[in-house]
């Protein structure tokens, strides 16, 4: 254990768990409150597609993934508005498009595709200093945005029509939240992976939603649950050699299950019925 505590890699893993869990837990609240949980899937696959084309074209895969996420975010919002389709439908269309593009890119690759597939699964155990730096930057941006625009985002998350009617720049905030969601996915691509990050975006805020009537507390709980899930995943992975990503997802799902079981909101609903 002393060796482990002196290891720079171990502390990078802990930092990645804390940063990834906090950022995903925070953007997850936006996603759950706007009732567009599948935006996480669409973004993660857009990031994956971007990384694949980055590898194909010899461009930094993370930069290509970030660009793909921003494009997907920008398409999801206006597509929903201009075509007058529900956001979940436009997310579904973007998801299927980026999935097709990703597999086309993989098909065009020659030689080993290990690097491309690593963006699906991620691996927190081999996190680099650069990964931690990118994650720290992204987490700071997400938390900074939340602090600066908390009162406005609360209105947008409550009801977009009401937010627009009172004169808040609702569209700009909605698109900013989508873009930050995409960039958070990108920042966590190497460590948590494009496929697994979806549950880290959905489970912690869903658990927090069961436990509080205050939005600020929901953000705090969600970030804590995200961080806790990642640290549990890391710990169990060290102890049992189990794949870290899978344990993180199971931990966050258990967290949701416990929150649902002990939810004061469900108790109150039962009391109201009786």
């Amino acid at each position, binding site marked *: 254990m002393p060796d482990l505590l002196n290891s720079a890699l171990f502390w990078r893993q802990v930092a990645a768990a804390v940063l990834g869990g906090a950022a995903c837990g925070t953007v997850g609240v936006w996603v759950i409150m706007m009732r567009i949980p599948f935006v996480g899937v669409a973004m993660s696959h857009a990031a994956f597609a971007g990384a694949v084309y980055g590898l194909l074209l010899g461009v930094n895969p993370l930069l290509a993934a970030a660009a793909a996420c921003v494009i997907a975010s920008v398409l999801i919002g206006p597509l929903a508005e201009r075509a*007058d389709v529900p956001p979940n439908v436009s997310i579904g269309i973007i998801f299927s498009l980026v999935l097709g593009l990703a597999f086309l890119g993989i098909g065009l690759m020659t030689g080993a595709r290990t690097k491309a597939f690593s963006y699906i699964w991620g691996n927190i155990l081999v996190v680099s200093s650069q990964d931690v730096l990118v994650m720290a930057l992204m987490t700071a941006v997400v938390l900074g945005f939340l602090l*600066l*625009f908390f*009162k*406005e985002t*609360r*209105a947008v998350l*409550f*009801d977009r*029509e*009401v*937010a*627009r*009617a*009172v*004169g*808040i*720049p609702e569209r700009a905030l909605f698109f900013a939240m989508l873009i930050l969601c995409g960039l958070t996915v990108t920042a966590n691509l190497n460590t948590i992976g494009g496929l697994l990050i979806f549950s880290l975006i959905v489970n912690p805020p869903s658990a927090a*939603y*069961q436990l*509080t*009537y*205050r*939005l600020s*507390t*929901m953000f705090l709980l969600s970030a804590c649950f995200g961080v806790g899930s990642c640290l549990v995943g890391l710990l169990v992975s060290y102890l049992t050699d189990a794949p870290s990503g899978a344990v993180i997802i199971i931990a966050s799902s258990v967290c949701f299950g416990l929150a649902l079981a002990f939810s004061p*909101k469900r108790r109150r*609903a039962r009391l109201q019925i009786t």
Partner: protein
Amino acid sequence: MSCAVGLKRVSVSYYHHVALSDVSLSFHKGDFVGVIGPNGAGKTTLLTIINGLGRVRAGEVEILGQKAGCGRFRRLRQRIGYVPQNINVDPRAPVNCREAVMMGRLGRIGVLRSVTAGDSQVVDRMMKLTGIMHLSDRPVGQISGGERQKVALARALAQEPDVLLLDEPTTNLDPLAVDEMKRLVVRAYREFELTVVMVTHQLEHLPEACNKVVMMKHGRIVASGTREEMLVPEKLGSLFADA
């Protein structure tokens, strides 16, 4: 009297459905206008055009002396209070009644600016006026339909608007709640010298203070005039016939 709301040959369509067709009207400052008509007449669309939430396909809109253009409408919207039809809120939603009313101030406060003591006083005043002070900490999804309409009214009034738009504010309320809502709307109209546009398809829900009535059917204005001229059996009969 100066013009608060002016629409000139305005048309609105969604796909193949024409929601408003060639609508022209003008309301003066201080008017209390009742817009009546059967379901699908275009009443809600009319309100969304006045507050800039809807998209105009043709025609001109002038609100509070300013031509409606994309760039300026957000600022203008801060002066237009809007009470939408009773919206469904998840009972578990993490927003309480006071926070919901405070949302009405946000346009005036502006982004990157903090809520001041003055803003809190305005919110308190509107919550007292609408009789919902005791609900401050209650989740907004866990109050009755009538209480939720009062929250929506308090939020719209917290904007300190010049124009107040009400979209079926009394629908699905019991008779006592309807009377209470009408009383509150009239009190706000008089106390804050508002221009009020109230949409309803239940004529008895129009308060006595309503001095002008617009009748709509199939996206068109079929008649308009004073309350006495409009609320007569012949006109009402033809408005709601074959609706």
